[in-house]
């Protein structure tokens, strides 16, 4: 259980983390999501007492990190896999960390076994590949068999096999009843890994919800429908009070209609009652990336220059400024899978 309250970190005039409050519950994987530079790592460092918060508190199982006795037995963390002396062997690295919290030496060999590094335990850690370093970092976090685990971008730079391994591994840890807090800037990765999400942008809390709810809210669902008699189909749907968009033929396939906020059942039955032939009837979901950008769009620290679509740029009246989507659109009206101009 991790509880942050009003957590704030200032570096001079820059506010890296701003009045952040959230809780991380045991027994599930909680994702910590935000664009690069949103303050995820800073927050994790404050949780672990490495950085002093400018304001606010963060408690682990009701106590500050500095108050924990033998903290590695309660909290395990992988913040940076490169925090290893390159000329020290993996076993020596784990051995000194184990000794610091009176963790028995045989536990070192156990965790090496768990992460699959037994065969290279005597090799110098400086020669490890990124994947091996990442595994050594996880072994370090597991050393004290802690109930709370923090991982900062654990899948960064890993190959698909490594990503899958870490994902399953975190699920197993959560199933054992541990608190697992994982940061990432990739919503698609978090959608597969985390049951809960804490979403931040520019150091501020954007949402704390379940992953499913976050994705449902953030991305619009729509039905793509296509048939030989498009005109009649269009008339039929608008006649029912549904919004219909024309999708011209493109990469997604031939011309079709897009009906937001409708179900395939609804439209299929409607077409059936008037005897309309359909060639395609499919539910569509906005991409997670779009949803994420939609929610954190205003909160990205390093914005690219001219990323705004033509319409929005005109509305914003400026060049080189990324214009956030108009307020009325958020959060459910994301234009999705539709080429730029004729979205609305």
């Amino acid at each position, binding site marked *: 259980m991790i509880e942050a309250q009003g957590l704030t970190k200032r570096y001079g005039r820059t506010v890296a983390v701003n009045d952040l409050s959230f809780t991380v519950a045991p027994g599930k994987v909680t994702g910590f999501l935000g664009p690069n530079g949103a303050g995820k790592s800073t927050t994790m*460092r404050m949780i*672990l*007492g*490495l*950085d*002093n918060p400018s304001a606010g508190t963060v408690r682990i199982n009701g106590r500050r*990190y*500095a108050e*924990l006795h033998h*903290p*590695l037995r309660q909290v395990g*963390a992988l*913040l*940076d896999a*490169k*925090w*290893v*002396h*390159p*000329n*020290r*062997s993996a076993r*020596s*690295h784990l*051995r*000194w*960390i184990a*000794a*610091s*919290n*009176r963790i028995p030496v045989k536990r070192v060999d156990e965790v090496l076994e768990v992460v699959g590094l037994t065969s290279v335990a005597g090799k110098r850690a400086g020669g490890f590949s990124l994947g091996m370093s990442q595994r050594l970092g996880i072994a*370090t976090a597991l050393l004290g068999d802690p109930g709370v685990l923090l991982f900062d971008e654990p899948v960064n730079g890993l190959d698909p096999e490594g990503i899958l391994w870490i994902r399953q591994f975190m699920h197993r840890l959560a199933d054992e009843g541990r608190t697992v807090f994982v940061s990432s800037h990739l919503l698609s990765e978090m959608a597969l890994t985390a049951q809960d999400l804490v979403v931040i942008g520019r150091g501020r809390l954007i949402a704390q919800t379940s992953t499913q709810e976050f994705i449902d809210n953030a991305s619009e669902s729509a039905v793509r429908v296509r048939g030989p008699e498009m005109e009649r189909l269009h008339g039929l749907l608008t006649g029912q009070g549904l919004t219909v968009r024309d999708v011209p033929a493109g990469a997604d396939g031939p011309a079709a209609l897009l009906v937001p906020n409708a179900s395939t059942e609804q439209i299929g039955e409607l077409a059936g009652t008037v005897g309309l032939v359909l060639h395609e009837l499919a539910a569509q979901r906005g991409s997670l990336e779009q949803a994420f950008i939609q929610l954190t769009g205003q909160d990205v620290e390093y914005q690219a220059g001219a990323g705004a679509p033509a319409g929005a740029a005109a509305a914003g009246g400026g060049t080189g400024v990324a214009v956030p989507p108009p307020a009325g659109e958020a959060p459910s009206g994301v234009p999705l899978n539709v080429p730029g101009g004729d979205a609305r």
Partner: protein
Amino acid sequence: MTLLTVERIKLFSTRSPWWCMILATALTVGLTSLFAATTRTKDLADLTPDATQFAYNFGLVVMMVMSTLAVTTEYRFGTIRSTFLAVPTRTPALVAKAVVVASLSGIVGEITAVGSWGIARLIQPDAPLALNTAQEYRNVFGVGLVYLLASVFAMAVGLIVRQSAGAIVIELIYLFLLENLLPVIPRIGDSIQHWLPFTVGDNFIVAGAVRHSDGPPVIDNMPLGPWGSLLYFAAVCIGLFVIGTVLARRRDA
């Protein structure tokens, strides 16, 4: 105790401390043997125990570099953060490091001192090298204590600067330039020299020794006696280490 074990594992699980220890001993003992072997028979009376220690500064600098690196490489490779995660109050871990590294430097200091004296005796058995007086014992065995305290000094600089090259350059410039150039200042130079830490620390070893041409420099009129000098030197080194520890506690790791 457990933290002492931790620092011992850290120190000996990389190779550079071994190289530093070998280098410090080889350099000091090697130079002394050269010195003893080339001493002319008519100058043999000058080859006293304190003269065998003229080269102790070489080994001292090597061990100071090792001590600095014991701290700064932890910052360089991020292991200081792992250390602070394991010991979130920080001070015990830093004190344990100081105890382990400084003790090792002290032991190396004694080895170089006894080694230098021993090799001189082997090469020139007729020289007056017997240890009889308290002063002669101090001339040889005092060297280890200066190593020990200088090691604490070096770790303190490492903690304050947190960067290998920067910390080592500061130490070398201080040791070889400032302590040697400040006394040159007219009128007040001498009074300054009497309170320069490494000059005072050296006074602990050489105080009372007879001045001779090839021996270590003996400065007259030092205000503190040998043991007072050692205390003063210790106060400076430990004081600096306290500052370093306070900074390490306050700063974000």
